[in-house]
């Protein structure tokens, strides 16, 4: 009795491993295509992933095919044109209609809305124009007086400082006493003297902020970061200087901006940036690059909750994502840190989706364990 039972078990085991062997080595049309599709769309179980991964490693052709199909997946970011949607405007519009539908008002309210909307649009346009004139004026002033402003820095601590601090995933927008508008990126800190209308306009920043500075030709606007000073008279620009990244970036959206290193004895002195210029410095190396005609929105889209990754390495990407989402990212092997990626995400997107796209694009894996994300 015992003998036949053993042989049956044996036969089944042999069949199973034989099947698995065939499965792993050959491209059985239907089954493997669905498996590959599952893998690419994130539907595969860890066991199924393993099978695909092993199949990929088998031959160079397999790997090539896989990469091509993966490329098809990534291609969506290019072909799936989302058009230009002003989400903010759309939401406000929806909110208005919502209110109207909730309160049982008559439909003839509609014309009034559209007039109101038009008025808002006009006002917005006017503000834009004023800013343009201001910038034109600065262009002249800065070039004439640049020498005078050069070496007046290191402000004393003024008593009474207002501190603006943004949390993870939070962007703040506020107006300073002098009328300048500031947007503060997640996990950033801005210190502003309580009396900004005194003799100098000096604020200090740790992190990233976008400034639309109210024009005042008598009083320059100074932004201090750990190792740099940015000064302007009235313009729009974006400064990135996080304590955990030894890097400073200043992008000029409008007007002219001067940047100098805090420690001039070994620094690169004064740098004049024009409209569209992006300054990148690695302060440890004491070198800097200026990129001209950089897309003006690239460094300020975060104000609309867009996370722009502009040819960034995975360790920089991780630092950035940690500011938008409450989590810790771990790179399991050092080689991962140098993988670069260019992409755009919305902070409203589910984190899972962002992680999936990153790992797909870089051909790596990730796993989530509570508040920790591990790339491997």
């Amino acid at each position, binding site marked *: 009795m015992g003998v036949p039972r053993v042989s049956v078990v044996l036969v089944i085991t042999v069949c199973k491993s034989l099947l698995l062997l065939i499965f792993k080595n050959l491209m059985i*049309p*239907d*089954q493997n*295509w*669905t*498996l*590959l*599709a*599952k893998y*690419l*769309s*994130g*539907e595969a179980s860890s066991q199924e992933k393993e099978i695909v991964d092993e199949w990929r490693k088998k031959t160079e*052709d397999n790997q*090539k*095919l896989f990469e*091509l*199909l993966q*490329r*098809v*997946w990534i*291609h*969506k970011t*290019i*072909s*799936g*044109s*989302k*058009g230009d*949607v002003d*989400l903010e405007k*759309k*939401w406000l*519009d*929806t*909110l208005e*209609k*919502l209110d109207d*539908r*909730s309160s049982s008002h008559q439909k003839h309210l509609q014309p009034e809305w559209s007039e109101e909307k038009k008025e808002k649009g006009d006002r917005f346009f006017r503000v834009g124009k004023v800013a343009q004139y201001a910038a034109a004026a600065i262009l002249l002033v800065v070039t004439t007086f640049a020498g005078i402003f050069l070496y007046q820095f290191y402000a004393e601590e003024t008593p009474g400082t207002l501190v603006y601090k943004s949390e993870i995933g939070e962007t703040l927008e506020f107006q300073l006493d002098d009328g300048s508008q500031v947007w503060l990126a997640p996990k950033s800190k801005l210190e502003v003297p309580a009396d900004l209308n005194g003799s100098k306009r000096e604020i200090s920043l740790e992190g990233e902020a976008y400034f639309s500075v109210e024009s005042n030709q008598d009083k320059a606007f100074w932004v201090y970061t750990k190792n740099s000073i940015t000064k302007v008279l009235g313009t729009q620009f974006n400064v990135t200087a996080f304590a955990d990244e030894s890097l400073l970036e200043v992008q000029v959206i409008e007007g002219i901006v001067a940047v100098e290193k805090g420690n001039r004895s070994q620094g690169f002195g004064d740098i004049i940036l024009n409209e569209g210029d992006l300054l990148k410095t690695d302060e440890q190396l004491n070198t800097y690059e200026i990129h001209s005609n950089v897309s003006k929105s690239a460094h300020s889209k975060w104000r609309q909750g867009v996370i722009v990754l502009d040819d960034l390495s995975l360790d920089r990407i991780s630092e950035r994502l940690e500011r938008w*989402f*409450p*989590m810790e990212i771990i790179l399991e092997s050092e080689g991962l840190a140098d993988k670069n990626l260019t992409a755009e995400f*919305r902070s*409203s*997107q*589910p*984190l*899972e*989706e962002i992680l999936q796209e990153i790992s797909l694009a870089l051909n790596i894996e990730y796993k*989530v364990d*509570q*508040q920790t994300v591990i790339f491997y």
Partner: protein
Amino acid sequence: MRISKDEISPAKINNRNTDEFEKMFRLYFVRLASYAHKFIGDFAVAQDLTQSVFLNIWELDGKWNPPGSVKSYLYAALKNQCLNYIKHNRVVKEWQDEESWSRQHNHINMDWEKSDRETKLDYSINKALEKMPEKRREVFELSRTEGLTYSEISELLGITKKTVENHMGNALRFLKDELSDFL
């Protein structure tokens, strides 16, 4: 932590929680509008239809009860809106055809010799997608472009998960054949 894929609570929206409603709107509006754009040539109309999906949910006055996930409800409702719109506006449909034709026409005018591999690949992917049977393409694009899960697609289209799997596999094999030049 934003790990969960579908974090919108219909119960909160039924309780007139505007924060939750706003969250849903911000999370889905752009994606839905671009999905509607596939049916409706005019992007402004596509956005209006998308907006009406959200307004309709609010108008249900606390009785919103999506049978499956919120995401697949939104896509299904929007698809219905689009199909209704097309039914009542034949003209628009014709206009859309004309536009998609001119879009294709632009493709044809692309200078193949001067384009790099990536551009050619993008072009060929688009071409291959156009050739795919409609249902298969729909399933494929819902997964790839819209990022819907297999179960969400099966809910949305009223087909089994197995059928979704098959469509996906077939789509992939088809693409491989069409793109064999790039291998």
